[in-house]
């Protein structure tokens, strides 16, 4: 059959397809152009509008204002330095007074302290009394403290004697202060 008889030519259909493809290609290129242009301009504008310079200027102005208070700042720095050091000393220094108070607080009225020694975490107490009962009570209290371990620990009886001449009982205790 002769192709020329067809009213619609195959060549025209191909051309139309070609034109449509070209049109699409042009559209894509146009979209690319517009998008890239817009993005470029946008980023350029964003870079321009970043307030870096104004922030730096404000910084310089504020820094000048702060310099006028330099003396105050030095004083404040010295104060913080002293606070840090004093705080360290107070938290680390040995303070055995509460423990000594606890021990002395348990000494009955008729018991006298002959000697009290405290050195590097150790306490030794020498007491005497005419009453054995009071000495016993004091020793019981010390044993109780040592068992609890808060006031003293590692309690040792150093000496226990009776002076026949004076009729006094003497007790010597040593312990560690926790």
């Amino acid at each position, binding site marked *: 059959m002769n192709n020329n008889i067809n009213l619609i030519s195959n060549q025209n259909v191909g051309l139309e397809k070609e034109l449509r493809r070209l049109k699409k290609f042009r559209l894509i290129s146009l979209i690319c152009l517009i998008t890239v242009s817009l993005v470029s301009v946008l980023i*350029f504008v964003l870079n321009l509008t970043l307030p870096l310079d104004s*922030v730096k200027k404000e910084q310089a102005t504020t820094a000048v204002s702060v310099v006028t208070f330099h003396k105050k700042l030095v004083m*404040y720095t*010295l104060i913080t330095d002293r*606070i840090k050091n004093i705080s360290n000393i107070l938290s680390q220094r040995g303070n055995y007074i509460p423990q000594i108070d606890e021990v*002395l607080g348990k000494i009955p009225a008729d018991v006298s302290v002959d000697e*009290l*020694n405290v050195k590097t975490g150790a306490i030794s107490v020498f007491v005497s009394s005419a009453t054995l009962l009071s000495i016993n009570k004091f020793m019981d209290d010390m044993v109780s403290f040592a068992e609890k371990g808060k006031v003293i620990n590692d309690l040792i009886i150093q000496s226990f004697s009776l002076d026949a001449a004076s009729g006094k009982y003497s007790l010597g205790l040593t312990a560690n202060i926790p």
Partner: protein
Amino acid sequence: MEIESGKKFNVELNNLLTLYRHYKDYLLPFGVILACILIVFIVVIPQFQQYLVLQGQLKVEMQKLNVLKANYNFLSNLDSSKSDADYNALTLALPSGKDFAGILNAISYASAKTGVVVGDFQFSVGSLSGNNTEGVSAYPSIKIDINLVGNTQSVIQFIQELYKTAPASEVLSIKAGGNSGGITVIFYYKPFLPQQVDDSAPVAVLSEKDTALIKNVSSWNNALNQPQLPSISSLLSGVSTQAASLGNNSSPF
């Protein structure tokens, strides 16, 4: 042979021309797309990277600015007279040098308040130019052995009073019995270390614990608020001058 190669060349040229004629309408859009891709790689991406860098810089600079503003606000609201008072109280509690005057005042004040009579006492000053560390390590101190006349309770009260009196001290040993006793006590001091005060560094505001410490130390008895004994004052005039010339670092700045 030459005729054949000439023919071949003509044929290829004709093919190229035909292709050109066929696709010439595509050339412009293709060029535009290619240019767009190049612009993205050459301009857009570097600009975007620069934007990110600038953003980072801005963030850093903003932080610096905020620190400066905070410092400005803090320092402008800082009460100078209160700072001076705090500084005085704190330096009396922990002197920058060997404060013989403060030590003798503390002993005499504790003695007067507790009724304990101070007998002989002996300074172990050590090297006047160097630092003697004992007790709380890393802190130089002056060690004193003091003989006390008083009962055990009075000696304990004396120590309690000493702990509430400037300069800061630590009792290393206690010996009491009968009507006499002795203690070994060290008085701390700490020279100011040379340091650079940076106006742009963030100023740490004192915590509640710090303000409580200042309040506590301010309530201590010190050379400014305790009655001085005339004999001690006259005794100190020579010692303090010597101490000032040997051990005192008034300010590191």
